[in-house]
């Protein structure tokens, strides 16, 4: 399209150099391009039909088909030890509507890294990274959301057998929402109240097998299934999960921080909020991911605004690009600035998180409160403003923005899910407020 070509010719900088700034290094920006190029040459990675025309089951099946193809190319396409390359590969091939390994990569593996002891990592991390098992992270309960203090699921230590007995005592205690929990995952990290000798030590993480590794049938004592369609993310089988006297070995409590010894003694973590570290990690990533959701909607809206012509300014011989209207610029450019700001801010916060992990391992937890409070606010502000920005991008595309051909509504639906997952925004803002007041 000549209009877009002219726009590109008027740019004053090299977009590859800017991509290096956006993605943190020239090396990674280059790797992204190489991976994208390599993927484009593999026909099986193309959508077999536009996703928006598919049913949920078709979307999940399509994602599974691509994951199977992906397993053949995985090692040749990316450096498998590089999390960013893996995420880029997933985004390219599987898109954003969800897939059976979504939480496996973003929650399950990072939680094993942050919360499993060295011996536990030896046992499970390699299997997870090789995708011999599919995991998810089950914390949220139907009646309690992210309110950790109200969780009802229990893990009661039986000293005689040295096992934990998992129970979901009520309907409201069913785990509800975790991605891939419904039909795909065969293992999960489950957050349950640790009970030893009738004393409740509060929520702790446990590694729990949900399904038989050969037949994929749910194990006795496990109730598991899909929670139904959602506003977006319909390629994911978000699930429910309940336990009835389900026994797991003592060694399945994740024990990098808190521990339970075989005689039932409880060893406290070095910092009260240490168990929140995976939340801090996810919320740190969210700023960057949300920045990219906003960026995607803006790529659509800005390009289309340079193609779409409507009305006249001074020159009456040809309709004007809608991008030349001040109102359109005011609608889109501050959001471009925010998208850049969110991505840069995400980088900085992830750097702080990585530093925090090193500090915690050396016994220094002083930065935890600052960062935990900040990331609560960060996910709230960024998800809200991303939703606002995507909605402006949709309206900037006129009527066609409302068509699924724009795909903006999918970006909107996926982005605003972040307003409630990993902590509902108002609750998160009040969490930060508590820290500000104390300061």
């Amino acid at each position: 399209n000549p209009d877009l070509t002219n726009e590109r010719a008027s740019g004053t900088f090299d977009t590859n150099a800017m991509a290096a700034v956006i993605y943190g290094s020239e090396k990674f920006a280059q790797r992204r391009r190489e991976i994208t190029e390599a993927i484009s040459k593999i026909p099986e990675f193309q959508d077999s039909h536009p996703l928006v025309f598919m049913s949920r089951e078709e979307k999940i099946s399509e994602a599974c088909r691509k994951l199977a193809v992906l397993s053949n190319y995985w090692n040749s396409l990316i450096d498998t030890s590089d999390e960013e390359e893996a995420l880029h590969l997933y985004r390219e091939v599987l898109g954003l509507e969800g897939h059976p390994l979504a939480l496996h990569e973003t929650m399950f593996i990072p939680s094993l890294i942050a919360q499993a002891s060295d011996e536990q990592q030896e046992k499970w991390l390699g299997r997870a990274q090789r995708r011999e098992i599919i995991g998810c992270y089950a914390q949220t309960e139907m009646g309690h959301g992210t309110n950790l203090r109200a969780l009802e699921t229990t893990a009661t230590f039986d000293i005689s057998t040295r096992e934990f007995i998992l129970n979901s005592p009520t309907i409201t205690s069913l785990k509800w929402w975790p991605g891939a929990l419904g039909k795909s995952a065969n293992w999960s990290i489950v957050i349950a109240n640790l009970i030893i000798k009738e004393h409740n030590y509060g929520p702790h993480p446990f590694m729990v097998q949900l399904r038989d590794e050969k037949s994929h049938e749910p194990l006795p004592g496990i109730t598991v299934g899909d929670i139904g369609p959602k506003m977006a993310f319909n390629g994911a089988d978000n699930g429910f999960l309940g336990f009835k006297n389900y026994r797991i070995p003592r060694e399945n409590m994740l024990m990098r921080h808190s521990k339970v010894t075989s005689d039932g003694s409880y060893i406290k973590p070095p910092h009260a909020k240490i168990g929140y570290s995976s939340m801090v990690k996810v919320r740190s990533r969210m700023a960057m991911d949300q920045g990219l959701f906003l960026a995607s909607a803006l790529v659509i809206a800005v390009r289309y605004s340079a193609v779409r012509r409507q009305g006249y300014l001074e020159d009456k011989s040809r309709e004007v690009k809608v991008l030349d209207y001040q109102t359109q610029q005011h609608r889109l450019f501050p959001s471009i600035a925010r998208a850049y700001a969110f991505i840069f801010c995400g980088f900085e916060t992830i750097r702080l998180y990585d530093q925090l992990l090193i500090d915690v391992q050396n016994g220094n937890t002083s930065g935890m409160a600052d960062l935990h409070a900040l990331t609560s606010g960060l996910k709230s502000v960024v998800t809200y403003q991303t939703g606002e920005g995507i909605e402006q991008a949709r309206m900037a595309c006129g009527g066609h923005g409302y068509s699924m051909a724009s795909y903006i509504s999918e970006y909107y639906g996926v982005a605003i899910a972040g307003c409630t997952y990993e902590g509902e925004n108002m609750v998160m803002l009040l969490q930060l407020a508590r820290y500000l007041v104390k300061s």
Partner: protein
Amino acid sequence: IEMIQNGKSRELGPMVAYLAEKESEIDLNLGPNEYLKVFEYAARNQTWRATEKFQKLRNSGMSNEKAWNQASVELTRASRLHTRLYIMSTFINHVGSIVDQKVKGVLIDLLNVHVTYEVMDIGIYVQGLLSSNQMDLIRNQLYVSLETIRPNAVSLVDSFQISDMQLRSVLGRRDGNVYENLFKWAKSSPLNKTDVLPSVTQYLKPMMDK
């Protein structure tokens, strides 16, 4: 705030140290860091205001929980401002660290859009700090920044390097060939597999034939 009130300002974490600082003169001509000061003012004032409201309610005999709930809208406003201040601060620092001068130049233009838009957006919180002349200056600066960014708008979004495969948008195609592909996409709708839908034959036709 409670730490500051108890004389423990030196123990504040680095991200909240500004809560104990005094207001300073603002000279908007000096660049983005002055806008940061405006945001610090807004976040600091709102945090103090919210805390004092909470403390006043508590001191009047209300329970801690009830006082917190009664002050919660003000408290969440403080949290938002604190977070937006952090985002702006990291944006400024990040742009400052960029070496490529052409990239840095356009990001400074984008940063100007950001700081002016954000300060305009929180105008209600900076009454008392900025004069109406200063607010007019910011407003005009925003419009100038929009014009400055305009020639780079497409390149700025191209720089995200999100492939067509990933974007899955007919409107956002990199080649810009929107309209012909919009028609092609519509034709691939399952509803267009046949010219006559079974529902027409089964329900509408008999109804119309009556």
